[in-house]
């Protein structure tokens, strides 16, 4: 599904990713953990195509295609989805209108007609129910005045609507109370299938109790320094990151 080879990326001449290697197969869930400033969010943004990051070395393949030259929207059209840590407020554009636009632009790029209004409505209703979102919420301006939990739920709602091949959840658990965490995780789990893959970026093991990863990777200083299974996440929760830093520095 996704293959990253020796990826180096910088922003404003500051080198952040220093040789990331990662392979994710369809049906897998990978967790990426690591201390603040280690490059987790940068990796997510680079995969999703944020232009401010300069890729100086390495390749990113989605399935067999090298996506380095593709714009963010082209990557989205090919099935990459990033759930933002800080979703942006768009006053005057409702959640419903926003997602309709996203879906129909994606369909257009794939050579499909607009989704018929009835079908769209049905889909919205179905996915809103999955995320326990009520109807009034859908007519509010996108992210404007949303609580932290509402923003994250709305991100996963968009993911549910867009049905990506590869979903990257960037600190989706931050700012969530336990109920919201459960709803969001439940949504993600329902969307998981053998044909798609999920990257969960998080500081804490807490979310991984709900979205259970097949693999856990630790990023430190722009590199993946340790990979393992879900037990690694427990170990990190218990011992923090210092032992990894010590291990590397030793």
């Amino acid at each position, binding site marked *: 599904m996704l293959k990253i080879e020796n990826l180096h990326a910088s922003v404003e001449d500051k080198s952040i990713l220093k040789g990331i290697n990662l392979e994710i197969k369809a049906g897998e869930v990978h967790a990426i953990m690591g201390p603040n400033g280690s490059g987790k969010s940068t990796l997510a*943004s680079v995969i*999703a*195509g*944020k*232009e*401010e990051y300069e890729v100086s070395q390495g390749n990113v393949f989605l399935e067999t295609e090298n996506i380095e030259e593709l*714009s*963010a*929207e082209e*990557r*989205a*059209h090919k099935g*990459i*989805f*990033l759930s*933002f840590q*800080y*979703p*942006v*407020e*768009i*006053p*005057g*554009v409702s959640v419903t*209108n*926003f997602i*309709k*636009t*996203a*879906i*129909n*632009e*994606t369909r257009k*790029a794939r050579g499909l007609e*607009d989704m018929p209004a009835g079908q769209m409505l049905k889909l919205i209703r179905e996915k809103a129910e999955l995320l326990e979102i009520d109807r009034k919420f859908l007519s509010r301006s996108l992210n404007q005045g949303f609580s932290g939990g509402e923003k994250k739920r709305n991100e996963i709602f*968009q993911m549910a609507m*867009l049905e990506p091949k590869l979903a990257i959840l960037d600190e989706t658990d931050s700012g969530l109370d336990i109920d919201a965490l459960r709803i969001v995780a439940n949504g993600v789990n329902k969307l998981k299938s053998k044909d798609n893959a999920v990257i969960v970026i998080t500081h804490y093991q807490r979310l991984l109790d709900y979205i259970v990863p097949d693999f856990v990777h630790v990023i430190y200083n722009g590199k993946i320094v340790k990979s393992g299974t879900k037990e690694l996440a427990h170990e990190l929760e218990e011992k923090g990151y210092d032992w990894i830093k010590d291990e590397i520095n030793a």
Partner: protein
Amino acid sequence: MDLKEKLISSFLAFEDQVDVDAYVHDIRSEAIKTFENKGFPSKKEEAWKYTSLNAILKHDYSVFPKQENALEYRDIKKYFIHDIDTFKIIFIDGTYSSHLSQTTHDGMDICLMSAALSKPKYRLVIENYFNKAATGDSLSSLNTAFSSEGAFIHIPKNKLVEKPIQIIHFSTGNESAVMLHPRNMIVVEENSYVQIIERHQSLSNNPVLTNSVTEVFAKKRAIVDYYKIQNDNKNASLIDNTFIKQKQESHCSVHTFSFGGKLTRNNLNFYQHGERIDSTLKGITIIGDKQHVDHNTLVHHIEPNCESHQDYKGVFGDSSTGVFNGKVVVEKEAQKTNAFQANNNILISDKASINTKPQLEIFADDVKCSHGCTIGQLDDDAMFYLRSRGIPEKEAKALLMYAFSNNVLDSVKIPELKKRINKLIANKLGVNIGFDL
């Protein structure tokens, strides 16, 4: 002969057409003298520092249309807010079109300036109000000198005018270049309410210069909501001089939507004569090419306990230029004034520019006045957010620009108008994003 000389000599010909014994004619004669003395404003004047009229004054405008031109409603329907019932006062090349209009004298007067100026029954109201709000600046004086036609609206006490009034000036382009001097007068008596939508629309690419004056008198507890749609063709220019005199507890608002035209200058002036008055001035400007839009506002707080709210948003692309010059004067007696002013701009091209200048002159000591202006670019993170959802760059930009200016539309009280403005915005931004913005 330059335009100034041409206008002055045309005044003699104009006098042949109008009743020189009428009350207003002395005012006209004075006004042409004022214009003759002052001439067109130049960039040397502080208020015109960033707006040059040179390019639009060089055309050989005809000052009076030589022929009467007719238009079929079906050809121009799109310029009307046509999905609701409205009163209409329509002009073609400066001449009233009874065919396209829907006026009334039933319990109120929604009709023509020419009728008000000539009929004895309006003599008193003309004497009481004509040219009583407009100032003696050169462009208003020029309009006053040639004032003979426009909208005349007189709403008596305690009347809620349910249908909005549309004032539309069409120019056909049947003459190579035309200059128009519409003169509107709106008197809203105590406790009455009226909504007005004004538009100037050229139907060709021939140069048009409109120098209009609108005087609004809002009496005690009157409410006036005025909407100006400025989306004209690329060779049409507009100098809009609007003067609003408010009495106690009246609420007046002017929303200006500037999306088109070559040069647009809005001289918008509010005078508060009474307590607990509320004045609202809002605008959205979205322009490109080499278009120029200048908002020059004045709110004069004269008495205590009044408010004013100014909120202007601007999006400037290509080589377009914008000006916001907002002056708030708070007199010594005007204690407890609340005056707010905001002017936020986005430049989406390196060649576009905006000059924004708040001017506060506060002589009272117990007031709340705030002003803020920003000039920025579209936010990269926001762009990335939208694009990562599959929304292409152009559409993403449009959505952000819409989101940026959107709050100005909150106070538009006519839903059909709001819808229309949204369409015009989408159109201006060149996007079709599958829903009415």
